């Protein structure tokens, strides 16, 4: 009988990966690294400029939350393999629609908001249906709607009111039940307590004397968090999320395996439109006015946030949390460059450089994770 050696404890064909490395290998890793780098960068260059005071934190948090709302929609759509370039125009259109419906047409604010949601989500569905029916790249179809919606916004404003900025919406929204859901602030009692105990500065004069400088968390930030949690859960924990990945990865193979690709894409276009309207409503309720040039070029900022967050432009790979981190990076960089005292005309140079670095970093990390060459 030959000697039987003990079976080897490990199979040398299986590579050992430590638990730490396993937890790092997530699609969000690039976004996390980028966020850490950006904060370190601004701690070095702008720590005494008011950027990390409560008011400063609120400033870049709000700007980041704005980007997060549209980035979630753009991310899910990009993973499904399509682009929506009409988001910015949709923001202007939705804001103007709320303003005109409540002032010129006289509807109560909550009806104006709900009607606007219905109209814009329908336009989003129309975008999706056109893309599917004609087979044209979504880039082209939504580019057309970028112009159509912007033009309709300006035309409707001038035709009804001869102005392009419609104000007085705070008075229209007073007493409405739906308006504070978008434009209100929560945790105001907590911030007042912090102000009273000296944790936050208070106003020294005027009608708000004694109130804390930061008086609550705006609903914009709450909506951003809700949408991120919803998007992440949908993408990673549900069957529909798998369908989104499949539709973006390879639409035809997905169809062969029974994924309703058309329905997925149209629903994602509708979701992007929904996110744009949430953004617009929060903005209109907070500022009390709607302008015909609101949201200009925001669609590119949404796509940039998603790309910084690690999604592939070709679809099929990405993460909502990554997009949220990308939006956070974008917002912190945009406001942080002001705090750091960068010359206004160089602003875009820095933004572009940071974008490029973030995307290169993400690509290297993604290749390390997926083993792609």
């Amino acid at each position, binding site marked *: 009988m030959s000697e039987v050696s003990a079976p080897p404890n490990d199979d040398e064909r299986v590579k050992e990966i430590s638990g730490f490395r396993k937890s790092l290998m997530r699609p969000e890793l690039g976004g996390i690294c980028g966020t850490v780098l950006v904060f370190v960068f601004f701690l070095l260059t702008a720590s005494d400029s008011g950027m990390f005071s409560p008011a400063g934190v609120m400033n870049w948090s709000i700007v980041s939350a704005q980007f997060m709302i549209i980035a979630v929609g753009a991310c899910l759509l990009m993973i499904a393999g399509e682009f929506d370039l009409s988001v910015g125009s949709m923001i202007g259109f939705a804001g103007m629609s709320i303003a005109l419906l409540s002032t010129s047409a006289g509807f109560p604010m909550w009806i104006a908001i709900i009607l606007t949601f219905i109209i814009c989500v329908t336009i989003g569905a129309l975008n999706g249906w056109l893309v599917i029916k004609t087979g044209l790249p979504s880039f082209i179809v939504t580019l057309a709607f970028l112009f159509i919606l912007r033009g309709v916004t*300006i035309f409707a404003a001038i035709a009804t009111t001869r102005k392009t*900025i419609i104000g007085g919406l705070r008075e229209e929204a007073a007493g409405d039940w739906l308006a504070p859901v978008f434009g209100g602030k929560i945790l105001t009692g907590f911030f007042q307590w912090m102000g009273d105990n000296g944790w936050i500065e208070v*106003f020294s004069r005027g009608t708000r004397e004694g109130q804390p400088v930061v008086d609550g968390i705006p609903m914009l930030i709450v909506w951003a968090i809700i949408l991120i949690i919803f998007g992440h859960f949908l993408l990673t924990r549900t069957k529909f999320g798998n369908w989104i990945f499949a539709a973006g990865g390879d639409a035809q193979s997905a169809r062969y395996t029974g994924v309703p690709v058309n329905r997925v894409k149209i629903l994602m276009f509708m979701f992007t439109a929904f996110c744009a309207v949430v953004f617009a409503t929060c903005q209109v309720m907070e500022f*009390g006015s709607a302008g015909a*040039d609101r949201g200009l070029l925001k669609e590119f900022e949404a796509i940039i946030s998603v790309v910084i967050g690690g999604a592939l432009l070709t679809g099929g790979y990405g993460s909502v949390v990554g997009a949220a981190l990308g939006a956070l990076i974008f917002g912190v960089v945009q406001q942080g460059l*002001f705090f750091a005292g960068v*010359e206004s005309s160089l602003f875009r140079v820095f933004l572009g450089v940071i974008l490029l670095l973030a995307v290169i970093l993400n690509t*290297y990390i993604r290749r390390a994770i997926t083993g792609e060459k």
Partner: protein
Amino acid sequence: MKSLIKSVALATAIVAAPLMVATTASAEGERYVFISHAPDSDSWWNTIKTSLGIAEGQLGVTVEYRNPPTGDIGDMARIVEQATASGPDGIILSIADFDALSGPVRDAVDQGIPVITVNSGTAEQSASMGALMHIGQPEYDAGHAAGTRAAKEGVKSFLCVNHYITNAASVERCQGFADAIGADLGNQMIDSGQDPAEIKNKVLAYLSANPDTGAVLTLGPTSAAPTINALKENGMAGDIYFGTFDLSAEIATGVKEDIIAWAIDQQPFFQGYLPIVLLTNYNRYGLLIPHNINSGPGFVTKATIDAVADMAGEYR
């Protein structure tokens, strides 16, 4: 992986270095933030940037110029909030959208930061926000004064080339002109956009569809220069009554060549220079002029253009 980390660290250092230098080299004097509503493409604000630089040098203060890159007033409101959070010695801004900006400006005033408003907006809006004063040119009145001049020459209809239609003040200029000549502002105001080729084509299209137009009014250098080219191309240059707002090198040439009858000089130099001077004296000695200041309108005609022409686009 190591080389990746090295290159990222190097890149961060390269990007951070100029910023570190910039922050340590700032002057010890007061710091002001000037926030305009103009998109990057609007060249009219160059004069104000020049005047801010002159005020900086003369008074020993630092002035930061900020604007929303796309002209989105929502972004401008965030910039005002950011400026407030950074604790400057004064904020100067234009009231492009009273509803959107009044909240952030009120917050700045209530935190003890003095605010002066310039350019867009009315004196009442400025006062209700708690600003110290407003320095600008009431737009409707300027348009009306221009229209009165044109009416004296017998003008009854006109084309208003509006390149910045989303700014309410621009519509008021056309409206004032229309009211002064007794015309109805219907399709006489066109949304020309900001691209020079587009503006020229739209002007040519309008004038060929309405050959009896009595006058042309442009609202700034962005719309004036392509309109001059359009009028040269269809032969109406020098024939049709042409007035414009603001000054630039092309407009100055147009006035000298008798193509443009007059240019309304809002004297933007004062909208940059005066707020810095007034805020500095307010901060240092507590002095304040108790009323608003009208920086314009000044009419620049062929008689006065030579003196003004060299400085157009930079100081005037």
